[in-house]
């Protein structure tokens, strides 16, 4: 069986600066794969290359064995690849239910329906409502997104990605900026996602990473430093140095 997601010699240059250097990575089907590395290591850039938000300077991306390097973002989403954004990227002036229905409509292929009202597309509305209820967002469903507390908005960031019905989900620092008490709840939500969904998680809190991941890749200066099980990564001296070095710099 082919891997959920694979890259081959992926490079990305911004002018003369290399943000991704020859990244060859395999994410297995159903994995809980963490991507760690200091700030500016190129984690978000890698997500952007995987999803097609950025075009690679060279190299290839494979989704379930299919070469998707030339496919646009929305075409990769249709093939089961969804992501969240490190900085909230929501529909501020829509109600939560509207934005979820929008996302579900796109997945169900209703996006071109121009005659019947949104509310008459029961399949989409019901699924959006069910998803909101499962994320305990039912009570804010009819609030404008911009009026919600930051923690709730962070949850909607994930909900929108889930509405795309992903088989592979890329979470870019999902708890960034969320207070600890709320971030625990957020990670419980993530942990409850079905096993068959492959998850790639970018996260700085090592406790969370070690508890969550069955595989960890370490990215430094745009290049893969190493990839291994959490136990091995915890023992790896080079990884410690990278993080220690950053702590000293900071």
């Amino acid at each position, binding site marked *: 069986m082919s891997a959920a997601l694979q890259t081959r010699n992926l490079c990305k240059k911004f002018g003369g600066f290399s943000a991704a250097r020859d990244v060859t990575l395999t994410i297995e089907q159903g994995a809980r794969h963490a991507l760690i590395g200091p700030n500016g290591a190129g984690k978000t850039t890698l997500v952007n290359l995987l999803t097609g938000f950025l075009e690679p300077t060279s190299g290839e991306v494979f989704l379930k064995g299919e070469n998707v390097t030339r496919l646009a973002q929305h075409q990769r989403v*249709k093939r089961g690849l969804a992501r969240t954004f490190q900085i909230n990227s929501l529909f501020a002036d829509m109600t939560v239910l*509207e934005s979820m229905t929008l996302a579900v409509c*796109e*997945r169900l292929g209703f996006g071109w*329906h121009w005659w019947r*009202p949104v509310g008459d597309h029961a399949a989409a509305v019901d699924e959006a409502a069910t998803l909101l209820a499962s994320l305990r967002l039912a009570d804010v469903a*009819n609030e404008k997104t911009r009026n919600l507390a930051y923690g709730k908005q962070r949850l909607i960031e994930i909900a929108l990605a889930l509405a*795309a019905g992903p088989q592979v989900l890329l979470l870019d620092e999902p708890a960034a900026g969320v207070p600890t008490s709320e971030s625990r709840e957020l990670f419980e939500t993530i942990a409850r996602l079905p096993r068959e969904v492959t998850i790639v998680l970018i996260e700085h809190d090592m406790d969370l990473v070690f508890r969550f991941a069955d595989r960890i890749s370490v990215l430094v200066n745009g290049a893969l430093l190493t990839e291994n099980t959490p136990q091995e990564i915890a023992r790896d001296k080079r990884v410690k140095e990278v993080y220690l070095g950053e702590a000293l710099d900071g």
Partner: protein
Amino acid sequence: MAIIPSPVDLAPLRRAPAWRTAEYICWLLPVAAYFLFPTSLSLLSQMAITGLFALSLDLILGYAGIVSLGHVAFFGVGAYAAGLLAKYGYGDPLLGLAIAGTVAAAVGYLSSFLVLRGSDLTRLMVTLGVAMMLFEAANKLTEFTGGVDGLQGVDMKPVLGLFRFDLYGKTAYWYSVAVLFVFFWLARRIVHSPFGLSLRGIKQNVIRMPAIGAPVHARLAAVYTLGAAYAGVAGALLTQTTQFVSLDVLSFPRSAAVMLMLVLGGTGSLYGALIGTLVFMTAHHFLSNLNPQYWQFWLGAVLVLVVLFARDGIMGIAQTVIKRVRGKA
């Protein structure tokens, strides 16, 4: 399996497309105007036609966020298409509208590839440039368009084979209002559909849309084409009700004016386009008779104030007031 009632209140979403009382009242105004101002029917027809034109701009600017300074191109294409059809023997008004709308849509679809690739500034310049080229083409192709003298000999048949265009402009008025209403109603359906929701999505967050699987470029091309078709129909209406096409249908001031009307009324609410047109043209009618300089001055002042302090125009102000009143009650 038992059906569990959804804990999410779906009523607001389901209720959204329902017609409100204020809307019914709003559409009684053209009927009232007919009886109140029987001598101003030509001005009132112009308002309906310009309202449809503003609506067409609202579709692309207000709903999809595409800025255009050359929207008049499609208005003009529709106007000339309808004029030429009627001149060469195909004077049926509805046939004229259909063909003019289709031709304008085709021009819109083709130009969408130029317009959609760039940033806002590029879009402003490309739309402006396309409109200027069409203006100059119409100016030079005097054999077809009559150039500066305008297109003569536009001979219209009765609407539906029943209603002749009369000297008092009664038929022209009801015809314009009816066409405006039908296209407004259609636009209203479209904006409440999943397609319309996706346009709002693109306007609010164009970065997120591809990440939820939406083909942004194709959606924008579609709404740009739709807006062009609407503008073409508005242009055709002007031709048919005045039985004449002047070069002015492709002029820059008309592009600018429709943009001003829309901003004044409020973008992205459909009714804003109509209210903006009504207020603008009424003010223009009274003020420019008094003193043309005054008109320009106050128009300028009002626009600066609207853009700085009331971004959503008259509709935005009205909604704020309604909310306040409801909040206090």
